[in-house]
């Protein structure tokens, strides 16, 4: 009887082991297949980027631009502590389960509280944000397309044979000091309008140059419509760096890069894709793409400028553009607004607001 049980246990173990091994092999194979498929798509895109048309799938007419506050989880989490369980095995089990439930609930509640707290930064701008529509952002961003040829919007029921179709799902984030707007977008490339699944997709994060001066006045200036124009410029830059990443082949070495996000210094471990106009494009450790205002290490003397994988000058042919990405934002006559520069909000004589670029 005992021998029979042992044999049965061994048998189950063998079956479980085989199943686990099969599962692991299947996972590895699936990952390898996905990587190979993406490599083939990247190769196809690189070869045909200049010769094929590009279209951008249009957002619904009433689709609002989604805004949230930038969240930091650095201070999240309860402190360390110990708990006494019991008495007895049953008491231990009940106390353990109760503790697990309370702990899980507390952590969820804390995450929700942090996210809701972060969104409060938008309250003073609520009436400015409500009318913003994603399709308007797309239309304003179209002229900033740098790939070559014309980028046009593809209606939701439209067709575009043999074109590379781009789809974006952006979420806009306001920093807690309201000095910068950030876009986090999933950029997807479809090989033809009929394709159901994206050939390539990249998670992209773009940070606008920091605003100086009275930030609320800057964002609330309805005449200049800074929110809409910055949102549009961010979206255009997201497209640019997503395409730049697909055009950059080979393994890149990550390094620690400093950048500015509003009034805060930020750090990212990432591989530089290119630098221009005081902005740096990065491939993150997750394989995502970032475009951020560059900054050098403040304290060290040995900090060399970030090496550029692409041409470091502005105005060069693709991947550099004729006009910097943020230059298209409307600036008062006689003043220019340059990528990577600081946006300064100053009082305008006509009761409006002047914008000037400081390098």
């Amino acid at each position, binding site marked *: 009887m005992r021998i029979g049980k042992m044999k049965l246990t061994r048998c189950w173990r063998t079956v479980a082991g085989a199943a686990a091994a099969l599962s692991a092999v299947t996972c590895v194979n699936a990952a390898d297949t996905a990587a190979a498929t993406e490599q083939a798509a990247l190769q196809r895109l690189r070869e045909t980027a200049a010769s094929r048309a590009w279209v951008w799938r249009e957002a619904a007419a009433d689709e609002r631009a989604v805004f949230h506050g930038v969240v930091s989880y650095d201070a999240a989490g309860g402190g360390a502590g*110990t*708990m006494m369980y019991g008495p007895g095995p049953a008491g231990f089990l009940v106390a353990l389960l109760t503790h697990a439930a309370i*702990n899980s609930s*507390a952590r969820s509640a804390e995450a929700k509280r942090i996210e809701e707290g972060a969104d409060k930064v938008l309250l003073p701008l609520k009436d400015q944000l409500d009318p913003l529509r994603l399709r308007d952002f797309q239309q304003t961003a179209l002229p900033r397309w740098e790939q070559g040829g014309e980028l046009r919007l593809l209606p939701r029921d439209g067709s575009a044979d043999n074109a590379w179709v781009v789809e974006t799902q952006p979420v806009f984030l306001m920093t807690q000091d309201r000095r910068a707007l950030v876009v986090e977008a999933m950029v997807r490339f479809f090989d033809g309008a009929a394709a159901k699944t994206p050939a390539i997709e990249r998670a992209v994060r773009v940070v606008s140059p920091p605003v100086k001066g009275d930030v609320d006045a800057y964002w609330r200036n309805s005449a200049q419509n800074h929110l809409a124009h910055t949102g549009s410029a961010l979206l255009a830059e997201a497209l640019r760096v997503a395409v730049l990443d697909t055009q950059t082949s080979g393994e890149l070495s990550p390094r620690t890069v400093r950048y500015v996000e509003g009034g805060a210094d930020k750090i990212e471990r990432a591989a530089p894709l290119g630098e221009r106009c005081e902005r740096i494009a990065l491939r993150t450790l997750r394989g995502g793409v970032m475009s951020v205002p560059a900054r050098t290490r*403040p*304290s060290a003397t040995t900090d060399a400028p970030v090496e550029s994988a692409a041409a470091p000058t502005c105005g060069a042919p693709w991947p550099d553009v004729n006009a910097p990405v943020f230059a298209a934002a409307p600036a008062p006559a006689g003043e220019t607004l340059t990528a990577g520069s600081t946006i300064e909000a100053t009082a305008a004589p006509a009761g409006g607001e002047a914008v000037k670029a400081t390098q």
Partner: protein
Amino acid sequence: MMRMLRAWMALGALVALVGCATAPQTPVALEANRLNASSGKVGVLMVVPTADTHLPGAGCLLCLAAASMANSSLTTHTKTLAGKELASIQGDVVDALRRKGVNVVAITDPVKIEDLPKGTSTAPNAARRDFSSLKTKYQLERLLVIDITQQGFERTYSSYFPTSDPKGLVRGTAYLVNLTSQAYEWYAPINVVKATDKKWDEPPQFPGLTNAYYQAVEAARDTVVTPLAN
């Protein structure tokens, strides 16, 4: 008689509990122009432990075993962090001091601070360790120590259950000791904890947490180098 005995026992317990406790060293700001060409020879020593996953709050043996098992893939990844970036803070400090005209030397020999004799002075801001051996060996006037005690990742626990997601961690102290007076002329705690921006559980490479670790390293660098460079 009984009351007297109880009072003496209570007093004894109090002395036993409090007598051994050492008041924590409070931060000491670095005076302007403390370090310049006339400061004498300054040695810069940095101690960096290997990266590890720290699980405070998993107090009992069984809790620790469960927490260690739950975070084993992260611990495996932690061991792959080379620590070169963190160790490069020593070079940045040497550069910053040299730029101010200080006669500075980087101490690269391995030194275990806890193996050095304890400092004998009880004066306020007196160094806890006696660095005379280093003074003699390197002919130093002052010693700048960057003592990293924990680096890697930290996840707080309440017995069996995590109360936070893992975060990048660099913890320790940086201080400048006048080797003549054995007093701290600068004392700065380093306590940097950085969370991931999004999800953390991405084995085997843990890119979000790895990024958070390097953010912690850079923030620690700023804590140490910025006051010395100014």
